[in-house]
């Protein structure tokens, strides 16, 4: 069964075609990597899936519904490109950042209950950052911050992760361990992953299948896996 289905999607910006005739199916439990050169439209494709951008034509079905229904937002875990880089000076603890994503699960008064605190703790344990809960997010390294961003989406127990260049700006060792964590989440918890990446070599090793977005904005299955 498909969690995401895209048919004949076109997107143009300022009359310039960015994406052309995109067809894509992602099944529940899948782990797909999207590779392609700079400016090919990889991040744009994720933003179209999230409903941040509107397609020029074509359909996107997420969780069996047309478009991205705001009620389904909690089922999606999105990590934008360079996300960790923006939060260096932000005065918030790791716990506050992760807890923020439980917003839709809090009641009218938005007061977190004990179960929410447990969820935060579990999410931090999953990414191996449970000891950093009280630390300011900007004090952590790039790799650690990216793990926190992963914990931030995992706390809401998403069904699909949309990751935009998750290893950009972090060292090779941190990137390797982040990929291992993603593989584990996919294999053990069955979380569907759609990841845009430049890291072709590691993407081929980690993902179950690879899609190549060429410079003409056309998406093709890459069979070199």
């Amino acid at each position, binding site marked *: 069964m498909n969690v995401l289905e895209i048919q004949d999607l076109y997107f143009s910006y300022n009359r310039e075609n960015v994406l052309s005739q995109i067809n894509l199916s992602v099944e529940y439990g899948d782990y797909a990597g999207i590779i392609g050169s700079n400016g090919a439209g990889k991040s744009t494709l994720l933003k179209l899936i*999230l409903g941040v951008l509107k397609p020029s034509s074509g359909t996107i079905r997420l969780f069996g519904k047309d478009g991205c229904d705001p009620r389904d937002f909690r089922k*999606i875990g999105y990590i934008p490109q360079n996300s960790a880089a923006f939060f260096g000076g*932000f*005065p*918030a603890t790791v716990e*506050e950042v992760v807890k923020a994503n439980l*917003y839709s699960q809090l009641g009218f008064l938005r007061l977190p209950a004990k179960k929410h605190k447990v969820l935060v703790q579990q999410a931090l344990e999953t990414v191996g950052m449970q000891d950093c809960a009280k630390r300011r997010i900007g004090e952590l390294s790039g790799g650690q911050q990216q793990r926190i961003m992963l914990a931030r989406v995992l706390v*809401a127990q998403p069904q699909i992760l949309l990751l935009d260049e998750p290893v950009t700006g972090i060292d090779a060792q941190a990137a390797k361990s982040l990929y291992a964590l993603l593989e584990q989440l996919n294999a053990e918890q069955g979380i569907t992953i759609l990841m845009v990446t430049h890291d072709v070599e590691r993407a081929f090793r980690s993902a179950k299948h690879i899609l190549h977005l060429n410079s003409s904005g056309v998406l093709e299955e890459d069979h070199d896996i």
Partner: protein
Amino acid sequence: MIFEYEFMRRAFLVGILLAVIVPCIGTVIVLKRLSMVGDALSHTSLAGVALGLIFNFNPVLGAVAACTLAAFAMEGIRKKFPQYSEISIAIIMSAGIGLAGILSGFVQNAQSFNSFLFGSIVAISDFELDLVIIISVIVLLSFVFLYRELFYISFDEQLARLAGVPVRTVNFIFTVLTAITVSVAARTVGALIVSSMMVVPVACAMQVAKSYKKTVLCAIGFALVFTVPGLFISYYVGLKPGGTIVLCGVLILVLILIFKNSSVGKRIPRLRQ
């Protein structure tokens, strides 16, 4: 004794109320990297003040109306230039100053208009006192109720939207809260100073606090620390209250920065959450 005078008791009450609500708004504005918003709005409020003085209605209400309109215009322009949101501040500030400059030429009582430039916290009328109390209660309750939404929007507006935060509604409410806060603060501490009142306590708090919650609480604490001694000094030394309060704040910020860079300061960790 300073508290024997009714006008000083009022000044302290208004100063303390503003010291609580202005940093609440200021924290969100600073974290959204829109620190100059207060400056743009307070300058625009002068156009409303001038209109009030020209057409004989309460200048503070004129300031509230002008600020609210300016805040929404700024929000509209910000959406047109999503990558360069500071453009909206510059445009509104220029328009506000231009309009206030022209309208001030038609104001008969120049002294009354000038009192809005540097504030007149010791000349608060009954109506203005009531207005400050009502607005303070509204702003504080709204801030507490929207605490989580404002935190997430400050952190990342797009991620907040994906987490289910009603970003447009919260931004709308926050814009109104900012406008009314700036208007009443401009009347009391002065239009030229209100932006500092919004930013300096937050800047101090960010130097010492570790969490968002602590940053908000410390910013309020710092604002109180600037305001109360500021009013005492201004009374006993005969200085303008608004300017004295802000200079107290800047002095404390400089001392914190010097202390943090000293060998002793480097050994002290930030305040625990």
